[in-house]
């Protein structure tokens, strides 16, 4: 029985391949449409992610302001500064001595009020710029700083975090909306492709049914067909995406160099290929399933 099942699957796979090969031009056109539907949002997502990375980083780099406890002396504070300078997640650290902070404060509107105080009320401080700007990285660094002995308070420039968050959120939403929209289009396209195959095979299907074939048996080659068609589209889509990315990377890198921004590689290629191929196959199977269900419901 087990062997029968495997053979049934391989036989159905063979039939699906035959169906794909029977009309190569139609297969090619459908594949191209599906591949475009996959590659386009992927390319947009890639550009979006890269741009978010640029603007998330530049001119809006996150600053963490750290105030030392009043009880520690200058040397201890400088030792802490030195230690953080050597930390691998930190890009740079600027020490702000309390005198400098006071001098800066005196030049503001608060100056007169401050002048009346007998002692400098301000603590020594340092500003820390992290190497990575992702909100979770910044938050992690903030926690580590706060846990340090001799440090009173840690403040993160929240405006920056919100800016990056906002940009990321908008980018993600645009990419998600596009992906959903194109996925729907892809689903419709595979539905249609399978539908055409079912209509073309209507006579054969009625014969199989008369001979006692179950819906599962009848649908099997078409499920394989949907899967193969989706997989094919996923591979071609990945190739299209790869081509576009390879073509776009030099000008983007050049742009990055001119503006002194980082390189442009928001996510690795294997990840995109994996996602595209998987999405293609899953959507293909789903489209086939919807088509088959509708076909079986309409015929008894």
């Amino acid at each position, binding site marked *: 029985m087990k062997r029968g099942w495997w053979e049934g699957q391989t036989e159905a796979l063979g039939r699906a391949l035959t169906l794909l090969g029977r009309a190569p031009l139609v297969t090619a056109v459908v594949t191209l449409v599906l591949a475009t539907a996959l590659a386009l949002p992927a390319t947009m997502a890639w550009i979006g992610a890269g741009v978010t990375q640029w603007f998330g980083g530049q001119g809006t780099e996150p600053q963490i302001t750290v105030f030392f406890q009043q009880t520690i002396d200058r040397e201890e504070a400088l030792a802490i500064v030195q230690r953080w300078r050597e930390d691998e997640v930190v890009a740079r650290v600027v020490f702000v001595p309390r005198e400098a902070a006071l001098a800066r404060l005196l030049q503001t509107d608060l100056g007169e009020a401050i002048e009346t105080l007998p002692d400098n009320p301000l603590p020594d401080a340092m500003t820390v710029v992290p190497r990575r700007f992702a909100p979770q990285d910044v938050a992690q660094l903030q926690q580590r700083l706060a846990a340090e002995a001799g440090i009173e308070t840690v403040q993160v420039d929240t405006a920056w975090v919100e800016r990056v968050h906002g940009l990321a959120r908008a980018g993600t939403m645009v990419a998600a909306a596009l992906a959903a929209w194109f996925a729907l289009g892809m689903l419709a396209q595979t539905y249609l492709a399978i539908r055409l195959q079912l209509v073309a095979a209507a006579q054969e299907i009625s014969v199989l049914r008369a001979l006692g074939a179950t819906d599962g048996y009848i649908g099997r080659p078409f499920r394989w067909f949907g899967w193969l068609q989706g997989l094919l589209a996923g591979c071609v889509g990945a190739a299209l995406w790869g081509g576009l990315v390879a073509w776009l990377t030099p000008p983007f890198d050049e742009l990055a160099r001119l503006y002194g921004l980082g390189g442009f590689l928001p996510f690795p290629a294997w990840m995109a290929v994996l996602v595209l191929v998987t999405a293609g196959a899953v959507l293909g199977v789903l489209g086939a399933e919807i088509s088959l269900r509708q076909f079986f419901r309409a015929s*008894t």
Partner: protein
Amino acid sequence: MIRCEKLAKIYPGPVAALVDLDLTIPAGQFLLVCGHSGAGKTTLFRLIAGLETPTHGSVSVNEHDVARLGRGGLPYYRRRFGLVLSDAPLLPQRTVAENVALPLLIAGVPRRQAFERVALALERVGLAGRAHELPPTLSGGEQQRAAIARAVVHRPSVVIADEPTAQLDRDNAEEVVRLLRAFHAAGVTMIIATHDEALFASVAQRRIVLANGRLVEDTW
């Protein structure tokens, strides 16, 4: 045993293809179904084989009502039959062997085993050498024999053949009758519709005549 009770099929129109038919077919019988064109022979076969649902009445096999099988059970019910019926022609894009193998593959028989049985069946109908050809390249008589091979390959308990000798010359028709007789001798219930009663006179055990969807004659 197949039992039809008050069996009726009304097509939209309305056309009363079959009206209140009562018929019991014992297992192993060779039944000849006669009647003028449009009498309801094919309609009766479709109802018995579970390819159509009755408008009224019922078909039951061994006291099990076919109407109560539902979508899940119907395919398994259909596998009890061997069909030589225009609703189930040979598929023109599959070879003769692949066509004959269908009832076995549908039932989940492993391929190797299935094609061994196909080879035997084709040998019995004299088509061993034509296994890998496409049906349209076969003569009418050869196609009919291939259809019979497909109808018996899975050893069904009932064979339903709708005018299996139509459009065949005398020699080919007699060959078909000889084959059907042989399978009947092996214990298969035979239900055959024909316009050529004389051809089956020597094998038929019972003859019914339909007229305008009604049973008008039943001789054993």
